[in-house]
């Protein structure tokens, strides 16, 4: 089905089920329990999970397949966001034209930067992309303020023209992003006993787009094109002497991943019509690298997992404060409680960056294949006969 092999189809179906049921899966704890802190099933975060998933999937097409480590992909995400917001300002609040434009502009921009940067390889390539992205950020923050609105970020306002829509709603508010009238922020709640689940239009739109993006990435991975990209990573000399020109292949991969980034940026703006320059900073580019590696570069599902994990830390761990910690360990005797809180507060709340850094070092050191490799190892522990099979299939499709 869908022109996929059985294994890939299974993966796609699993991912589809996970994303469609995410509002349930991510809200496992009753709303009023102490563990509700760890619930992630609210629309904004779920949207971020899948949007950054798209970003990472795209980045993986470049990095995972060709091995070219770009430190500038955030620039394409930012450009995508700016394009989408401009579309909301000028044309209408419908998300479709905005998404189309953000993909096109990000594609064009990444073609330009890729064309220049791909003249070099290895760390030189990384530094070139880094330099371009930092330039984009610095300019967007200052000189280009008329286009980007600098520090405060590009926003929609009541007096934007919106030639195909309206500047303001009847009651004087800024109109809301929608798809043919269906508002992105529309949502419905399902309350079952102590649990509460939210289903939002925005999330399901993002999830559908992500599934399409994921499906296309499977096709690319299994296509001759994907094989060529892996061949480039493996041995450029042989590539050349086999009559193949690596440049257009890598450029195409760069542009495709740039378009994925633009799509993600556009979606971010659709869910929340604001585009800030920080989206283009090199640390933001670093973030997608972390996501991809954390999940497992070159694997299909890895980047999505990595994106989810990092966004979960950023949004859930950073919100645990000392008071919360104390409330958890209330039952313990005071010295123990204080000691435990003292240790943990390094890692939560303001310390979530530290947790991320530590996990990241551990993963790179001990699990070069990322979470996917971790999962495989655990799987192997549980099932030795299956492990043999895994090994075989890993050898067949080494890029998995």
């Amino acid at each position: 089905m869908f022109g996929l092999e059985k294994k890939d189809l299974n993966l796609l179906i699993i991912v589809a089920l996970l994303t469609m049921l995410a509002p349930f899966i991510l809200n496992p704890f009753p709303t009023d329990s102490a563990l509700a802190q760890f619930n992630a099933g609210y629309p904004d975060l779920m949207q971020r999970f899948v949007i950054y998933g798209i970003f990472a999937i795209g980045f993986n097409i470049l990095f995972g397949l060709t091995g070219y480590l770009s430190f500038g992909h955030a620039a394409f995400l930012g450009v995508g966001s700016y394009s989408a917001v401009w579309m909301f300002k000028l044309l209408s609040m419908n998300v479709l034209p905005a998404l189309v434009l953000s993909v096109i502009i990000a594609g064009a921009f990444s073609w330009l930067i890729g064309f220049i940067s791909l003249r070099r390889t290895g760390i030189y390539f990384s530094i070139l992309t880094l330099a371009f992205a930092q330039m984009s950020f610095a300019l967007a923050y200052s000189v280009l303020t008329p286009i980007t609105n600098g520090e405060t970020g590009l926003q929609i306002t009541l007096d934007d023209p919106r030639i195909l829509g309206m500047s303001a709603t009847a009651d004087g508010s800024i109109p809301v992003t929608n798809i043919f009238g269906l508002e992105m922020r529309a949502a419905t709640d399902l309350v079952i006993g102590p649990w509460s689940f939210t289903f939002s239009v925005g999330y399901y739109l993002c999830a559908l787009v992500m599934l399409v993006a994921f499906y296309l990435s499977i096709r690319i991975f299994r296509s001759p094109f994907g094989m060529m990209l892996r061949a480039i990573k493996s041995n450029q000399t042989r590539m050349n002497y086999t009559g193949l020109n690596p440049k257009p292949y890598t450029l195409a991969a760069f542009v495709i991943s740039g378009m994925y980034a633009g799509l993600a940026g556009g979606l971010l703006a659709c869910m929340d019509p604001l585009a800030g320059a920080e989206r283009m900073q090199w640390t933001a580019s670093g973030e997608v690298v972390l996501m991809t590696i954390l999940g497992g570069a070159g694997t299909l599902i890895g980047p999505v997992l990595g994106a989810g994990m990092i966004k979960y830390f950023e949004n859930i761990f950073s919100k645990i404060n000392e008071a919360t910690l104390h409330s958890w360990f209330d039952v313990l005797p005071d010295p123990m409680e204080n000691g435990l809180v003292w240790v943990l507060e390094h890692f939560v709340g303001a310390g979530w960056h530290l947790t991320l850094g530590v996990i990241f070092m551990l993963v790179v050191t001990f699990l070069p294949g990322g979470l996917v490799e971790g999962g495989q190892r655990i799987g192997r522990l549980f099932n030795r006969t299956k492990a043999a099979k895994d090994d075989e299939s890993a050898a067949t499709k080494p890029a998995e």
Partner: protein
Amino acid sequence: MSKNNLTRRGVLKSGAGIGAGVALPTIFTASSAGAFTNEPTGNTVTLGFNVPQSGPYADEGADELRAYELAVEHLNGGGDGGMLNTFSSKVLDGTGILGKKVEYVTGDTQTKSDAARASAQSMIQKDGAIMITGGSSSGVAVAVQGLCQEAGVIFMAGLTHSNDTTGKDKKANGFRHFFNAYMSAAALAPVLKNLYGDDRKAYHLTADYTWGWTQQESIAAATEAMGWETVNNVLTPLAQTDFSSYIAPVLDSGADVLVLNHYGGNMVNSLTNAVQFGLRNKQVNGKNFEIVVPLFSRLMARGAGENIKGIVGSTNWHWSLQDEGSKAFVKSFGTKYGFPPSQAAHTCYVQTLLYADAVTRAKSFNPCDVVAALEGFEFDGMGNGPTLYRAEDHQCFKDVLVVKGKENPTSEFDLLEVVEVTPAAQVTYPADHPMFAGGNLGTCNPGA
């Protein structure tokens, strides 16, 4: 506990779902209209404190958070009551807000508009926060204010000094207690004239982004109006750490005043560099060379160390003020944490109380009722003298402090001395002032 509610058509919020004893799960997917976003239905109400916990303003964020915790304590009847005792409005009685116990959630803005919005979103959607407050930069304030407008909750801005927050980016659901660049300039200009005369040549170094520009524009306009000449204005990159190459040309420019339109780390570095180049000891045009830092904060002054001595600037509030409100606040804060509060802490504390008070007076959590209660609200006893929340742009008008780095500090907190308290009337501007033009408050949005 209340849950998120994002649709304008609305869905039923149900606290009744908490049926631990119910054998069969009760399922609600009803869609009758809720009154407004995150209407508190239980016996608690949740506020969202969105402050920078990572990034360069983390220390300010931490101080803001302390102030918020203190405010919550006071609202719930704990501690010594702080400013509740001095506040001119007496409706708050230490029983929470409208009888509901105040709870709070915290988040990290990272001083990035994206992260700040994500954090605020999670407070609104996940934790059911009815009001968001905090922040330590204008970019973040404007971004979160926009979000709160869309989501239908109230935003009580923290530290934000750009004219835009209540100028071209003002929003009906957003309120600013902090002063702004225009007010800094209006307060500073007469003092500068007194101290340094009306025949001065000023050289501006300006952080190259929105806040820097508006402040430079405001200061240049105010000082030029009293006879100063602006010789030059050089924009410096946000990421700049060593300002020597920007300071050096000042030496030969013929200017006799250097205005540093910088904040945070930029300010500490540019001031340190300026002092290194001996500008403080220089004589130009027969006058002593002077440095002005229009926006001061004590936390940053501490970062600048010795270099801050004798430098003039403006600030929203300082702990050494001797009015009853300030004294009460400093006492509660100092007793709890062991050091005096910063201006960021003050503004955040006051904003929380003002919100609680507005809800109580309106007898409703509905954002539109709260907006109505805050608009045109006049109060006193909160540390800045009689204050007005102007209805037209949701900006507070109150006295502004002109301060100077203290020459002989008696403690590590005693860094600034108040030179003058500029009365509110002097810093008030018409709502349609050109520096604040281009925005539209819109109408209040109660969400659902």
